[in-house]
């Protein structure tokens, strides 16, 4: 009789540890996902200043400047599955803007512009870093979810596999075209 009770206690303890471990890993992955937004927001905040600086030297490059502004608002409003696509379009618009700026040596010499360019490049690096960290957390969560014997209980406890960032759809794999 005592054996049975001991076995039940051990199994119950195991279930608690498994559940808590999965909760912890999932929360870490979810936090890592929000951290990506933190870096995206940095980019949004830098762009208006950039647009103003460029306008000062290249006011007639209206299309490029408008594209950047529009792409930015679209990206800020996008949620869920539309978000990565909107962010990619914003990256594309920024690339076009910097390409155009190459034709304006006075703009390139402007200190503010140079600083903003550096900041935006660094922000792209930070976005990449945040995504890589998120992928690491997702990997750890999926591993803990799918290894034996946790995988026996995972579904009944309500945990499902998370997706890596950058699981691009076929449409997203095409080169980015800035179109409105």
């Amino acid at each position, binding site marked *: 009789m005592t054996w049975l009770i001991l076995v039940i206690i051990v199994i119950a303890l195991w279930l608690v540890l498994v559940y808590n471990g999965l909760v912890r890993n999932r929360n870490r992955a979810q936090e890592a996902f929000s951290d990506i937004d933190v*870096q995206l927001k940095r980019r949004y905040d830098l762009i208006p200043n950039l647009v103003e600086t460029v306008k000062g030297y290249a006011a007639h490059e209206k299309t490029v400047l408008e594209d950047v502004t529009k792409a930015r608002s679209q990206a800020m409003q996008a949620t869920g599955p539309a978000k990565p696509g909107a962010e990619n379009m914003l990256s594309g618009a920024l690339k076009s803007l910097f390409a155009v700026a190459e034709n304006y040596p006075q703009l390139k010499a402007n200190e503010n512009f140079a600083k903003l360019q*550096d900041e935006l490049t660094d922000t792209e690096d*930070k976005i990449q870093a945040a995504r*890589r*960290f998120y992928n*690491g957390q997702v990997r750890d969560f999926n591993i803990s979810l799918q290894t034996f014997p946790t995988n026996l209980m995972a579904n009944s406890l309500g945990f499902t596999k998370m997706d890596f960032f950058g699981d691009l759809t076929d449409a997203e794999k095409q080169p980015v075209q800035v179109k409105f």
Partner: protein
Amino acid sequence: MANLYQYQESNIHRTWILFVVFFLVVGGLGYIFSQAYGDPSFFVFAMLFCIIYSFISYYSSAAIALTLARAVPIEKKDNPQLYNIVENLAITAGLPMPALYITPEMQINAFATGRDKNHATVAVTAGALQRLNKDELQGVLAHELSHIGNRDILVSTVAAILAGIISLLADIFLRSLFFGGIGGRRGNNNSEAGEIFFIAAIVLSILAPIGTMLIQLAISRRREALADASGVLLTRYPQGLISALQKIAVDNVPMKSAKDSTAHMWLDTPFKGQGVSWWHRMFMTHPPIAERIKALQQISA
């Protein structure tokens, strides 16, 4: 080694094995000495002393290391490129941003210290900043951040505690022979068993400190290799660290502030220009550079 994860796990396993051996050695020696001495109390004393002493040094490890290296703190405005590299790597690793320092040495080197990730410090030599390009610097800094992430300061402190206990036991035992503390007590034990333990204790008092140093150095080498692997997992660009290590391999600039006590912390041994004989290999704090480069190249092939 087929891939980085396996390389990482292998180093972690070997560290654990080394620690198990270490604990067994400490336990065994404690037992032998207690039997020879007839009284386990000085084993307890040695343990407590070493734990307290080591934790004091653990808490002040950063300050001491930085002072010895004559490191100067820097902020983002002093070197934005360096700051950004470290900040981005910290985001990738999920670590808080460490404090950044530069040491005025021309040798290419770097170290990380600090008792935990919230009190972490990374220092880079001026030589490294001048002579490494961005990818190489990133590889080096990723290695250093990995030390913080893998809690290597704690690992080496625990190893130092164990080594300290053994050295202290050996020391106390040998001293007590001079002051005749053993003579009276031996009569209490079964004299044959007591004699064997006694002889074993003398032999071990001489050999054990060397043995523990070897274990400590082996642990240090495994953690360095682990930091190489973890660092590359952060940058996902092995060539950066490989290229930096290749530059370090031919770097014979001496480090003025190189000290035995802090040699293990640097990216590579600050004592340059040494040949790699068998004897020297046993006593190295870091795996030989050529071995580290080869391991990383095999993984990234």
